[in-house]
């Protein structure tokens, strides 16, 4: 039986939630409203919650000053490939660690998890050297390969393993009796049931790739190869100062698809994380 919350307690709880919302909602509100303010109004004190006047030209300038469409496409296709690649690698690796008995499975899994403890700032220089030798600097290859086989994929593997561990063994045994081999059991039984976990892996992998900043600024040097987070820093005036309103207009356009994806898929995201025993 669910405990009943008194109306008074409800009001207090909702009030508290509204207060807690401010630090999450205000930056987004400020970004969107400032993108249509004249630059002089952005830092006005007291801050204006609503613009006094609207300057929509900032949005057209976003496309004039940078190859923004191309950069948008770069971010989108890289994030898509990374997401699909990570889903494939992490689901197979997670299933193997959860279900297949092989020597030193737990030790190997611990070693794989240790990869999460190494910050990307530590590995970025050796990675740069490797990709330089492979002739892949100033291409999108590092931005695809590093996340698929690096820390984001390790985290995704952990999430998938935790899910597969909870899957009843009898389902797989029934499938074995029904005539399925190991790979078909994975594809026909385990994977379809892992949809919530896969959805959360897809969402946070997509977000991670979409927001990737360090790797693009290290590996990419041509504006037409830039991804969005890197492109945002390029909206500067002749003296190198940021053109805030245009930058915020670009940031709004950058954040838009992520926001939409999150709003649509937030249920799966939360369910998926619930399966891992982790919280946000």
């Amino acid at each position: 039986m669910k405990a009943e919350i008194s109306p008074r307690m409800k009001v207090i709880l909702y009030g508290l939630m509204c207060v807690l919302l401010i630090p999450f909602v205000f930056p987004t509100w400020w970004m969107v409203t400032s993108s249509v303010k004249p630059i002089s109004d952005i830092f006005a004190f007291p801050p204006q919650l609503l613009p006094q006047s609207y300057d929509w030209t900032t949005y057209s300038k976003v496309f004039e000053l940078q190859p923004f469409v191309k950069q948008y496409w770069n971010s989108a296709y890289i994030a898509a490939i990374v997401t699909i690649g990570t889903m494939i690698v992490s689901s197979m690796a997670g299933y193997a660690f959860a279900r297949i008995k092989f020597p030193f499975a737990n030790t190997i899994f611990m070693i794989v998890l240790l990869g999460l403890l190494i910050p990307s700032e530590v590995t970025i220089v050796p990675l740069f050297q490797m990709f330089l030798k492979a002739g892949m600097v100033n291409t999108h290859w590092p931005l695809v390969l590093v996340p698929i086989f690096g820390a984001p994929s390790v985290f995704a593997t952990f999430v998938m393993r935790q899910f597969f561990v909870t899957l009843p063994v009898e389902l797989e045994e029934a499938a074995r009796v029904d005539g399925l081999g190991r790979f078909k059991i994975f594809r026909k039984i385990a994977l379809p049931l892992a949809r919530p976990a896969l959805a959360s892996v897809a969402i946070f992998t997509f977000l991670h790739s979409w927001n990737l900043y360090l790797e693009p600024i290290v590996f990419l040097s041509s504006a037409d190869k830039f991804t969005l987070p890197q492109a945002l820093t390029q909206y500067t005036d002749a003296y190198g100062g940021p053109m805030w309103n245009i930058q915020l207009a670009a940031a709004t356009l950058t954040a838009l698809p992520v926001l939409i994806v999150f709003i649509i898929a937030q249920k799966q995201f939360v369910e998926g994380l619930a399966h891992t025993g982790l919280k946000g």
Partner: protein
Amino acid sequence: MADVTLSRVRKSYGALDIIHGADLGIRDGEFVVLVGPSGCGKSTLLRMIAGLETITGGDIRIGGRVVNDLDPKDRDIAMVFQNYALYPHMTVATNMGFSLEHRGTSKAEIAGRVKWAADILGLSQLLDRYPRQLSGGQRQRVAMGRAIVRNPQVFLFDEPLSNLDAKLRVQMRAEIKELHQRLKTTTVYVTHDQVEAMTMADKIVVMHDGYVEQVGAPLELYDYPANVFVAGFIGSPSMNFLNGRVEAGRFVLEDGHKLPLPAGVADTSEKVIYGVRPEHLTISAEGLPLTVTVVEPTGSETQIIARHGAQTIVCIFRDRVLPKVGETITVAPDLSRVHLFSESTGRRLS
């Protein structure tokens, strides 16, 4: 349909022996129940027949073919699991036809087989539902449907009724038995419930600590248990046991009380266990004096729990006798139903 033979089948996990060389012959079309307390190895033995567990030693034959190293799919068996193991993302029809789909059966034939099984099990109206939309009994039927649709040589059931409530369990028990009588497929059924074993089996295999204690027809096990364990396990409430010795054609309890023995029992220096079932005791002028501690009238019979010294004795009377708690009654055994066991080996003497 096929016979199943187990020859010296062993299972060990490292140094730990789980099954100590089981020998068992199951005839074509027979309904065999493996029964025993939790941890006796009955489910392990069933899983070894299914191919879900490897065997450490011995041979398993299905239809005369050694299947020791064959995958479950190549053994031509179907299994019903304790928690049903229905695929949650598939409808009832897809669940039932899934195995046929993976054996290259045509869609028309799958549909025909699924319809046939659904008609038998009363699932025709539920074919488009998902397992989460079904009750426990319906899920159980789908699990059976999934098994019969393939027409395998052997059915294996692993405690399929243990998740159901008491009423549904009785109903499903009858349905499984009826299904077996209709299909005549060799069936191996695991349960820890001896009533289920007695009512369903053609042959019962009683297991204890990884050993096969006795194999026989239900009433044979009830009437002639081979040892104290089987005597205590088969029958509800359990058989009463009294320790003592045989002297001058009578059984002498440790406290000196004497009970009659069937004719022809020779004196022995060995210590003996005297076993008598609760339903084979009657109130009599002479016999064993008991102090009544609990009286449980059920209408059709009266169960009395009483004490003789420190020993608890259970009696079941068909007559409506209602002694008061604390009252002393005297009971005598039906001599034709008395069982004697060696105290040292636990084996049957009579």
